[in-house]
């Protein structure tokens, strides 16, 4: 079989060692978790790093644990299967375990990691093709060309490849934070801010940083959450649209609602104005309809995947409506406050 482009391989035993390596190698290196995203990309010649640095031997980066007053701490090397099976995740934020289960296939979840899902490269039908395929066309902006072919008129100089990570979309809705560590120190940012919206460079992580922790803050305890995925086949496929919703029901009313849409834009899109629209109100069908329309408005799918753009936009509306209906139903059942 055609081998992968050559690279050197490193397996640091600690985060500090990984950070040291990255400080030295910078953008010549790529981090690898489970390999389910990076290896196919290398196979297609999308990336040819001189070094591949695996985080698999760093025990600290694995595991899901609850810490009172802090929250749900998820090691980024936790596999998606471990995430979906985690008793802590299932007890406290079942929608996160469910979102992990929506990814790919059993083998991809066995290999793929939570961190890998957060750092999933954006995808585009013009970008995720082999070198032979690319030889037939002009390079797109993400491959070093001038224009984004998925952009309106194909003339934008910015990349509009699509972000299609299921769990990441749900974690943004869960107000997750991520910690990034470099040789120079650590910083913690909102996961929502980790995404740049630039398809060519989708995360704000620097080349010398390692993602070391994902935290769902303890303040999120008791939220209701849901993640709905629209796709053609019931396995393997990336989302055509993914809708995550969190809210806190109290006294039959909605508080702190947050909706995030994946599979549509170059980042997980937080639906603007939805929290304010729903705050303190009873979530009836009319309100849900208005909120779903907001979601639709926030979604501007481009020609980055196969599938009709108007239909994808409409599906955001439809799945947003469903997520809200599900939440309303769960809120009624929960009697206000219990985690679903």
């Amino acid at each position: 079989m055609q081998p992968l482009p050559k690279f050197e391989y490193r397996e640091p035993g600690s985060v500090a060692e990984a950070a040291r390596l990255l400080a030295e190698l910078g953008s010549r290196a790529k981090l690898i978790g489970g390999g389910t995203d990076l290896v196919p990309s290398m196979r297609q010649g999308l990336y040819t790093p001189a070094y591949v640095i695996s985080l698999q031997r760093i025990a600290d980066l694995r595991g899901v644990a609850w810490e009172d007053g802090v929250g749900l701490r998820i090691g980024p090397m936790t596999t998606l299967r471990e995430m979906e099976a985690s008793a802590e995740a299932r007890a406290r934020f079942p929608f996160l375990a469910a979102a992990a289960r929506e990814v790919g296939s059993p083998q991809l979840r066995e290999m793929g990691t939570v961190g890998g899902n957060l750092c999933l490269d954006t995808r585009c039908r013009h970008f995720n093709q082999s070198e032979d395929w690319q030889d037939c066309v002009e390079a797109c902006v993400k491959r070093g060309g001038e224009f984004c072919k998925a952009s309106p008129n194909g003339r934008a100089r910015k990349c509009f490849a699509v972000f299609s990570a299921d769990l990441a979309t749900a974690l943004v809705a869960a107000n997750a934070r991520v910690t990034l560590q470099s040789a120079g120190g650590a910083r913690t940012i909102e996961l929502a801010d980790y995404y740049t919206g630039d398809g060519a460079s989708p995360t704000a992580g620097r080349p010398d940083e390692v993602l070391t922790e994902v935290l769902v803050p303890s303040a999120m305890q008791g939220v209701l959450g849901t993640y709905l995925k629209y796709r053609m086949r019931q396995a393997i496929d990336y989302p055509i649209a993914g809708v995550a919703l969190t809210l806190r029901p109290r006294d039959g009313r909605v508080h702190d609602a947050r909706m995030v849409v994946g599979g549509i834009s170059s980042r997980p899109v937080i639906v603007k104005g939805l929290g304010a629209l729903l705050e303190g109100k009873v979530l009836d069908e009319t309100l849900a309809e208005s909120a779903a329309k907001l979601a639709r408005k926030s979604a501007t799918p481009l020609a980055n995947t196969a599938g009709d753009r108007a239909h994808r936009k409409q599906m955001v509306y439809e799945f947003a409506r469903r997520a809200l209906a599900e939440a309303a139903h769960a809120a009624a059942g929960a009697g206000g406050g219990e985690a679903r």
Partner: protein
Amino acid sequence: MGAYTVIGKKTPKSDAVAKVTGEARYATDVYLRGMLWARVLRSPLPHARIVRIDTSKARALKGVHAVLTAADVPDARYGALVLDMGMFARGKVRYIGEAVAAVAAVDEPTAARAVDLIEVEYDPLPAVFDPLEALAPNAPILHEALAGYTTLFDRTARAMQGNVNYQAEIACGDVEAGFAASDFVFEDTYQVQKQHPSYMEPNSTVADVDAEGRLVIYNTTQRPHINQAILSSLLGVPIAKIRVVPCHVGGGFGGKNRTLTEPTAAALALKTRRPVRLTFSHEEEFTSATTRHGGVIKLKTGVKKDGTLVASQATLYYDCGAYAPTPNAVWLGAISSTGPYRIPNVRVEAFSIYTNKMMSGAFRGYGAPQSTFARESQMDRIARELGLDPFELRLKNCLVEGDSLHTGQPLHSVQVRETLLKARAMVGWKGPRLGPNRALGVACGIFACGGFATSSIVKMNMDGTATVATGAMDMGQGLRTVMRQIAAEVLGLAPDDVTVVIGDTDLTPFDVGIFGDRGTHTGGQAVKLAAEDARDQILAAAAAGMGVPAGRLELRERKVVDRTAPERFLHLRDVLGGGQYKKGGPIIGKASINLTETAFDPGIVRGAATKMFSTYTFATHVAEVEVDPRTGVTKVDKITAVHDCGTVINPDGLRGQIIGGMATGLGYALYEDVIIEQGQVQNPSFLECRPPTAVDMPAIEFATVEGYDAKGPFGAKGVGNVSVINIAPAIANAVEHAVGARVTSLPVTPLKVLQALGAGEV
């Protein structure tokens, strides 16, 4: 029908142990000492003149042993009906992915680098991608020399011109008078997509030159003997100097009724005198292999108020891509275009049309899923508009024993009515609607079964066992086991007593290839006749020894038994081991048959691609769906399948093959599409072409109806094709009953359902 010992009994696949242990050897598992790796340079343009090819840099690269272009191989072409394709593009390229040059090198990376070093200068030409646009008078012409190409069908009836590489016409009765006599005339246009066969194993060949200078080909194919003939004509090597040794085939479905990797690997092996391996990459499977034909079907049907079909006019435009490896698909489509119905006045015009796209070829259903989608969709429209029950309309018009098809072919073994009745009972039919957004949809199918030339040898061994040799390939559907059962039944043996040698052209007699439901039916019949030949010789030999007339003897339980006095018997091993040295010599049975011998009446059929098929198979499928009117998503909950397959030989094999066909039909109906823009395949992978997964499958209910085909072995017919062809219309029909959305193009995507519902933005 007799009481059989082996036929119809549970018999595990003879190659199952090798396959569950990973020991079965496929072409991609062949690694020979000193083997070189080949890679092909492919056209990046859909249509262009080749101005110049410079291979000097590639040749100079260390580790490169050979570089070939059209200039290095004989100017020979091949094809099924129209010989239009050479090993490499010559003079011009006609699709993105066409082979321009090939390299053999010490390893794959070197071969890849060498390919990159080949310089080709192209002069782009206008291209055409739509089959109907390709028919326009000013359309770019793909094959200027088409009229001069060798053809293997009667082209005098229909001159080939423009981009039409094959054309057939069927006319029975008076279709205009039929329409005039009809109470209603329905006219619809249907569109179908390209679907990839998605066999798991890629095309692959290892070609070697042996000590005697013969070419030895290890490959994955449905037609070893035809491969041999094509290699001979393309390379200018005598057939006797070529041995094709097929490995286990990792799925074919018609897609391996091709010769894709063999000529290039063979030419490179001849050039280098080293073994050469050429394996298609996953992407090459989606750019440079073949798909089901996409196209357009126009269907006009006249009907009486009571639902009696009176006249039908069908026009089939099948998009065959840049070459026509099997334009016969449109001929099969024409045959299936009436459905399994009695229509007195029929006219069919069928066109196979070149476009600057990847090739279309054979794939399970072979031309019929397209026309069946049109026919069965329109049948439901007729039922609805006439206020008739969909089952009743079909039952009223279905073919029965003794009817003739619109081609003039008399039909035998016709159980379509029985499949309809049984399916109706199985689903507890009370009309199509089951509840809000839930409904049943029914569709019938007819497909040609069996025919063409095959042969078999049955060699009796000294211990009483038998060795069967057949050129009819097992492509994974289980033909080895079926052959074993057939020979065992005739010879009074257990299946394990029969060894089947399959495919190797040095060891097996000729077979034309496995397609058109002819493996079990026609290949199996040759094995049966050869086994009977051996049996008769055994009985004659034993009769002399036992002093009993041969007519009183029979073979059972490894013995020759006197039917009138079963205590009198000889062990087969004694007849064949000791016995055969005494007189008459060793026993070999043989059979050569051609089950396609009757030509069509030229007054009815013009431009027939074949003679009459041996028989026809029939099936009724009922899909139970739930459609979400807000998303347009169709969920198929259950498919009920009733098949008329004659005598069942291997029940597990039959069931597996039929359910597999249904899965392919499901993918065709809902998910799969090879999307081509400006000649370039946009989704060249399983990930994006989406064959169904295990969790996409509906519940399956499956039954057969009793039947017997006089020409098939023990009355058996095939099932490979008919299991696919009427799934899509059954689902499309159910979708309409569920939510009122009629989708007339495949696949039935959520978007199309919503559009049919007229649902705009909320």
